[in-house]
């Protein structure tokens, strides 16, 4: 950039474009402009870099730029929205490997011997880059269905992880003091150990915990880029990397909060020191009370607690759902016995409820995406709207495989943005909802999260669908969700289980609804 009289002016322009872009991320339309502004900023910086330096090696650089752009664009243009988390994970992996290569080359090039802040930063970037790359590729493989998605725990997993971290720390301390000719050799074992750390973390996480992992990888990819920027003394790398690290950390916190689990517990599988018998039950209802007079949420935050739990006091000892359940209508195997015992087919009952419904809330989960039911859900939604019902979507923060995934899946099926409600807004509306239609969601609507202690989902904020007049559950089966906790919602009165393939159920409901007019 030496050809510019004031090279920092370009940096300022790029940074301003970047932050304006981020501040525009409030509505989809503005966000599109914002994303464009950020892209323009980076394009300017790249153009200046290409024009300013006397670059050698065009025969390598040209094809690399062309191929990377072409493949990147082609893949992004073709993936379906259900594959987006896998693509993002693979892209994190590529970013991590790029940081790894650049940090390595720069560490060798500087020719310094011994410690400096740059070298320390570079080594840290090398480690985080390697861990991000290994973890992301494993996560991407799981999300794409190429590898088994369930979490794997090795014998002594925690100790193995701790040992790897200590080994990486020790190696770094030693490698950092070496002259750079030896550093070239000893950086490889360090990279291998770091990659092992990333692998150990990612292999432990699966299924519904993936949003946390992918957010952590987002943050670590940014941190690695920022550290690489300190190493090579590039301001834009530092700015962009730090912004990404902030963003990834915020999303990680949001995801952990939405599951009421600490990051450490998700990533290492550690159980909290307090087990089921520990008296955590009593203090929990209290914090909700001081929160009630908070400015914006009158009935929202404590909605689930008050409206979901009419059956038993939440601070009582953990009780099996059946004993606290007053409803005699269904038995533990409702799928088998309900049609025989009930006078009407549950699908007919469901259609009858939908026919008279004025307020319908659709609660989608990842199961909807797996069943490819989102388009049929939207068709049903339009049928209901034609009949004069108001339809909204209640979206739990951890529904899907990455933060906000469900919104994108619904947007692909042409759901209106305004109808996608967040947790608090949705819970405020459930008491006035005639029909809550749960499609492929289990843990996020499980009242056990607020009523039972000592389960993996205890304390997790849920969508309080039980407050609706009628609840239709269109899940594949009545088995517990990813958490393994029995869903006590299924045994409540007013809840109809429409088990089976969600797409088929939607088509049947559509047919019954149109036939009746």
């Amino acid at each position, binding site marked *: 950039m030496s050809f510019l009289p004031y090279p920092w002016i370009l940096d300022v322009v790029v940074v301003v474009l970047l932050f304006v872009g981020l501040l525009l991320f409030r509505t989809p339309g503005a966000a*599109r402009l914002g994303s464009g502004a950020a892209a323009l900023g980076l394009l300017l910086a*790249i153009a200046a870099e290409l024009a300013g330096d006397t670059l050698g090696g065009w025969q390598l650089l040209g094809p690399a730029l062309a191929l990377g752009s072409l493949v990147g664009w082609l893949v992004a243009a073709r993936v379906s929205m259900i594959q987006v988390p896998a693509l993002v994970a693979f892209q994190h992996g590529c*970013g991590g490997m*790029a940081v790894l290569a650049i940090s390595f080359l720069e560490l060798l090039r500087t020719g310094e011997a011994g410690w400096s802040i740059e070298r320390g930063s570079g080594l840290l970037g090398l480690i985080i880059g390697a861990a991000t790359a290994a973890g992301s590729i494993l996560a991407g493989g799981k999300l794409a269905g190429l590898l088994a998605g369930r979490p794997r725990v090795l014998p002594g997993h925690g100790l193995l992880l701790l040992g790897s971290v200590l080994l990486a720390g020790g190696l770094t301390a030693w490698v950092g003091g070496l002259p750079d000719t030896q550093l070239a050799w000893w950086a490889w074992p360090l990279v291998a150990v770091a990659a092992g750390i990333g692998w150990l973390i990612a292999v432990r996480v699966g299924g519904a915990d993936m949003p946390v992992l992918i957010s952590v990888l987002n943050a670590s990819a940014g941190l690695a880029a920022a550290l690489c920027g300190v190493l090579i003394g590039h301001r834009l790398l530092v700015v962009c990397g730090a912004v990404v690290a902030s963003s990834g950390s915020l999303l990680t916190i949001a995801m952990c909060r939405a599951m009421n689990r600490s990051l450490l517990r998700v990533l290492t599988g550690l159980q909290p020191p307090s087990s089921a018998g520990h008296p955590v039950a009593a203090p929990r209802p209290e914090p909700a009370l001081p929160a009630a007079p908070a400015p914006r949420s009158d009935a929202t935050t404590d909605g689930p607690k008050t409206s979901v739990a009419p059956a038993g006091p939440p601070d009582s000892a953990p009780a099996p759902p059946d004993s606290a359940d007053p409803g005699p209508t269904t038995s533990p195997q409702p799928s088998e016995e309900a049609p025989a015992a009930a006078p009407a087919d549950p699908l007919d009952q469901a259609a009858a409820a939908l026919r008279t419904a004025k307020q319908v809330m659709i609660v989608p989960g990842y199961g909807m995406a797996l069943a490819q039911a989102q388009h049929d859900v939207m068709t049903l939604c339009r049928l209901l709207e034609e009949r004069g019902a108001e339809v909204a979507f209640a979206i739990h923060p951890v529904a899907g495989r990455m933060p*906000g995934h469900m919104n994108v899946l619904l947007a692909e099926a042409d759901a209106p943005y305004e109808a996608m409600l967040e947790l608090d807004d949705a819970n405020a509306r459930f008491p006035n909802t005639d029909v809550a239609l749960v499609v492929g969601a289990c843990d996020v609507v499980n009242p056990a999260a607020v009523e039972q202690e000592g389960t993996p989902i205890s304390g997790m904020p849920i969508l309080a669908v039980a407050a609706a007049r009628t609840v239709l559950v269109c899940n594949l089966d009545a088995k517990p969700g990813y958490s393994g906790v029995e869903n006590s919602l299924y045994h409540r009165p007013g809840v109809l289980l429409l088990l089976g393939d969600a797409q088929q159920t939607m088509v049947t409901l559509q047919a019954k609804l149109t036939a009746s007019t």
Partner: protein
Amino acid sequence: MSDLLLLLAVLLGSLGLGWFAISRVPPRLHTPLMSLTNALSAVTLLGALALFGTELSTPAAVLCAVAVLLATFNLVGGFAITDRMLAMFRGGKRS
């Protein structure tokens, strides 16, 4: 040394400003946000390009080209998928 201090100040400032800007993004847009920041983390492409301007041995140049390839894939793919997703959202006025 003052350059380094400036860089560390830039690091802290960006962390704070980034936190401020991103905490205002509605959860409904979290997936496009993550794919955008994912593209931003490919800013390391600038570092790889700067390295190409220095004297490099052949293996180093090849490694650097691989870094350019990976970072470009990340950058272009990240912005492309972000734009595609945002274009899918129907409506956009806050109710």
